[in-house]
């Protein structure tokens, strides 16, 4: 009884707080300060057709590096806690067989999903999407592979190498920005090209490709760890 009363009290107070926020909220009619600068000068300064990408990769590129680092840390912690002993590593996952439908569709769809992921991060500066989204799409292709054959071995060394090389290249590209252009992760040390082309917006396609590969490798690594954790039983 007391417990239910307390839960109700907490819910009512949260509702009260949000109701006040909602009641006093007035949508702004024009952009303020720095947002107005991004919207007005973004295309001209960065050369990216997708303004979100211009902000995420260049204006706020340092935050993106932090996010990639957090994802790396998550993958390492999961790897640390789900590490198997040598004896368990040799075991197989016991399952009741996968359906013919899933196996066939995995064979047809996985290459297309990988291609779509690469498309999304290569065109991050032109169309919606980018490194994180493309990486997640690639990882969902890996998930489909794992589901079609639960005992599939994923090449662990390839994943680690792709992840390390793209992470280091991302930081090197950022440092090149300091020496050749305005600052860390500045994209203008390569030519901005024609607005709207695939090879435009300076270093953004390169940087986003490396972010995409790194995110894809990290999430695939997490999935691989969870897959292996099913072995012991």
């Amino acid at each position: 009884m007391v417990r239910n009363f307390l839960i109700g009290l907490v819910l009512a107070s949260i509702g009260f707080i949000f109701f006040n926020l909602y009641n006093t909220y007035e949508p702004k009619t024009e952009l303020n300060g720095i947002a107005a600068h991004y919207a007005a000068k973004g295309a001209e300064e960065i050369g990216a057709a997708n303004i979100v990408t211009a902000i995420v990769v260049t204006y706020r590129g340092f935050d993106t590096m932090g996010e990639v680092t957090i994802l790396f840390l998550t993958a390492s912690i999961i790897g640390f806690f789900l590490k198997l002993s040598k004896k368990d590593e040799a075991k197989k996952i016991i399952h009741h067989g996968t359906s013919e439908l899933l196996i066939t569709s995995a064979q047809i769809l996985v290459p297309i999903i990988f291609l779509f992921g690469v498309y999304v991060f290569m065109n991050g500066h032109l169309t919606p999407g980018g490194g994180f989204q493309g990486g997640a799409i690639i990882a969902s292709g890996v998930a489909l592979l794992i589901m079609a054959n639960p005992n599939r071995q994923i090449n662990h060394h390839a994943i680690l190498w792709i992840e390390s090389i793209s992470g280091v290249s991302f930081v090197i590209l950022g440092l090149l920005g300091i020496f050749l252009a305005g600052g860390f992760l500045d994209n203008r040390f390569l030519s901005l090209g024609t607005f709207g082309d695939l090879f435009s917006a300076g270093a953004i396609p390169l940087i986003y490709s490396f972010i995409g590969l790194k995110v894809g490798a990290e999430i695939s690594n997490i999935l691989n760890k969870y897959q292996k954790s099913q072995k012991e039983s």
Partner: protein
Amino acid sequence: MALFIGVLVLAMAIIAILNKKLSIAVIAAGVVSLFASVLYLLMAAPDVAMTEAAIGSGLSTLIFFYVLNKIKRYNG
């Protein structure tokens, strides 16, 4: 339209919390993410919608099922 999807999201979230069967709760949580991504698309945020659809409803549902399977085996 947005209101309808918002109500659906709420309904799925309540199912996810109240359902006694864990596998149904996990699927309902995945459907919440799926409808949320449609909602983001309606609000003109395709970048967020892509992330939500791929990670929220795809990968995290799969990871929940892996963990569920593991817990079931431990508890017999």
